[in-house]
């Protein structure tokens, strides 16, 4: 007992120390205003020096890249100083943006999911970028707005308004353990059937470990649109605000997941938080997760052989594209907005978007960049980066309706009953669809 409490104590202290050192790192880096802006203007559009505040939720290597790029931008633009402010996790960022909007102290720009932008738009908190994009200081011809992949432009287009530019965009891909696959004569699955077979084959004892074939991330509720689209169904009609997934395809999707979980050939990330942990420990043979997880898997994998492959096909191929955009708040001066727009364009120049993607596992947002030699030769050498790149043709974006948060929450609550308890797929589908519809109606 004494040993136990000692162990506990040591564990606690180490966690504390880790927590402290993390937070001090963050605060060190949150203030990154640099270059002096006293010299006269070179760019015609901004004559007065302006400061652009950018709230983000990037940490680690992601934040490092952002700092370097911003420092460079500040050097190149005499009159614009972009000040990065790290606001913690996406959840923290969202809460702080809400509080700031209420206090009328919003930053000039911030990272935001399209789902948040719906709320901002409803409350007239954000700026329509369309006039700037089409204006004389819009995108240069060789790196046009239209060059940005359609799926990312769609994510920022609300009716005839453009409320943001894409920045860190990812897709979902299948991570797999190469050694396990090769030793068992398997090739990366391209269809649901192959996925199920591979999961069954790999669910056994390997090197004294009880391996489970397939892994699902915890937020399966938010991933469900992907499974339903793959099953050939529709998720939600965004125009009508109508839930469409209570269909045969929906049932097939849930049954597919449920069967694997029930017969033990698949598991949830569960208490591990993210699948990258069990995957790099060799506890699971493969899992579906965000391509932005590549950096994390690479860090923990050690000498394990792994790669990614495009999502297997059900009835159809479908890959969700996720991640945040940069949106601009209305509570700023025109000069600040012009400066911020320069910066937003800068982050996704063909060179920068590729450089960003190489560092982080996010995807280049421009078509020219995705096809450019710089990127294609890079992914040739770095296999895990290929899968995400292959999925643009059948990419889709998440629903962006008022009430999306409540809808996903309600769906997850019902889905949990199937994932962790014994609810049948049919009952779960019924309950999920009615709760989801309720949440959407509530927000109308």
């Amino acid at each position, binding site marked *: 007992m004494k040993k136990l409490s000692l162990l506990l104590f040591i564990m606690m202290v180490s966690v*504390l120390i880790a*927590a402290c050192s993390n937070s001090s790192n963050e605060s060190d880096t949150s203030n990154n205003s640099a270059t002096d802006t006293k010299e006269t203007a070179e760019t015609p559009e901004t004559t007065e020096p302006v400061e652009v505040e950018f709230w983000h939720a990037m940490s680690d290597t992601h934040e490092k890249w952002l700092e370097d790029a911003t420092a460079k931008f500040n050097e190149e633009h005499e009159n614009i100083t972009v000040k990065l402010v790290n606001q913690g996790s996406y959840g923290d960022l969202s809460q702080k943006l809400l509080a700031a909007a209420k206090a009328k102290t919003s930053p000039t720009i911030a990272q935001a999911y399209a789902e948040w932008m719906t709320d901002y738009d409803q409350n007239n908190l954000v700026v329509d970028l369309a006039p700037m994009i089409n204006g004389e200081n819009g995108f240069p011809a060789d790196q046009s707005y239209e060059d940005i992949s359609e799926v990312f432009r769609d994510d920022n287009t609300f009716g005839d308004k453009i409320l943001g530019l894409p920045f860190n965009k990812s897709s979902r891909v299948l991570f797999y353990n190469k050694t396990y696959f090769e030793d068992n004569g398997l090739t990366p699955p391209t269809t649901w059937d192959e996925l199920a077979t591979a999961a069954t084959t790999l669910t056994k004892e390997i090197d004294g470990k009880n391996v489970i074939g397939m892994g699902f991330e*915890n937020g399966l509720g938010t991933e469900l649109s992907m499974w339903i689209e793959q099953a050939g169904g529709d998720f939600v009609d965004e125009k009508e605000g109508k839930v469409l997934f209570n269909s045969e395809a929906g049932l097939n999707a849930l049954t597919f997941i449920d069967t694997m979980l029930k017969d033990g050939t698949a598991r949830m990330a569960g208490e591990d938080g993210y699948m990258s942990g069990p995957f790099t420990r060799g506890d699971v043979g493969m899992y579906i997760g965000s391509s932005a997880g590549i950096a994390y898997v690479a860090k923990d994998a050690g000498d394990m052989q792994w790669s990614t492959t495009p999502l297997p096909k059900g009835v159809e191929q479908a890959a969700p594209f996720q991640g945040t955009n940069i949106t601009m708040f209305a509570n700023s001066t025109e000069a600040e907005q012009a400066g911020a727009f320069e910066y937003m364009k800068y982050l996704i120049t063909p060179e920068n978007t590729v450089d960003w993607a190489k560092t982080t596992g996010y995807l280049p947002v421009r078509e020219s960049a995705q096809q450019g030699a710089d990127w294609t030769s890079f992914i040739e050498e770095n296999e895990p980066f290929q899968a995400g790149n292959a999925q643009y043709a059948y990419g889709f974006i998440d629903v962006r309706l008022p009430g999306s948060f*409540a809808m996903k929450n309600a769906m997850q609550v019902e889905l949990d*009953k199937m994932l962790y308890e014994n609810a049948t797929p049919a009952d779960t589908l019924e309950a999920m669809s009615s709760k989801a519809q309720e949440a959407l109606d509530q927000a109308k």
Partner: protein
Amino acid sequence: MKLKDTAKAFLYLFPALLIIGVFVIYPMIKSFLMSFYADYDFFNDVVYRYGLDNFIYLWNDEVFHQALRNTFIFVLGVVPISIILSLWIALMLNSITVLSKFFRTVYFIPFVTSVVAVSIVWRWIFHSNYGIMNYFLGLFGIDPIQWLTSTEWAMPALIILSIWKGLGYNIIIFLAGLQTIGDSYYNAARIDGANRWSRFIHVTLPQLAPTTFFITIISIINSFKVFDEIYALFDGQAGPSNSALTVVYYVFNKFYGEWDFGVASAAAYVLFLIIFIFTLIQFYISKKKITY
């Protein structure tokens, strides 16, 4: 003279009052008003209509009912066990002389450690494959329990964590209470031939009544307000299938997640009323029962 004294007192109190006013009183009034917002523009502070809509919504909202149920289960699970356990430990600490300071510190550590750090450690303790909890239970032949990923065990896991966390504070208060009991009572009881148990029942417990009362009130209020532990233990979720959703968590979700500011305020006030009523009942009982 009186007026001057009052003015002087006010001057001294002013800094504290200012802080309380800004961070406590104003939010209280504001959220009270907000709970009656029926149709409003939150960001520009325009209210088109006041009404009871938010309370009616809560009355009909199954999720809120679940949150209430869970909160009551949590309070019932934590408070009695925590009090009995901490009293027992306090009695033991009071009777040993060697190392008592050391143990007091050990028991107090959980209380002063950040909830998030504690919860992260407990997430490992509760881990179904690698956790020490299931390893321990395994020694007694008990099958691994899915502490964090089953709807039945999520709440017990949360209760265990919260009891452990609150223990140190209760023990310190109990120890202080025990120290105020004069030896003469025990000596008198001994002369009358009272054994250990009778001395505990007839001397210690009654003498400790005010302390116990204080701890009960504080524990109940704190337990009703549980939030951080859940957020950290279940990784930003309210347990599988909302099995650890409490009222404060519900308020948090409504406010920050769904931007349903009126309903969030209304739910907060329902919680306030419940705590208020409980505290009144306790004061009533204590007046009747505690005669020391």
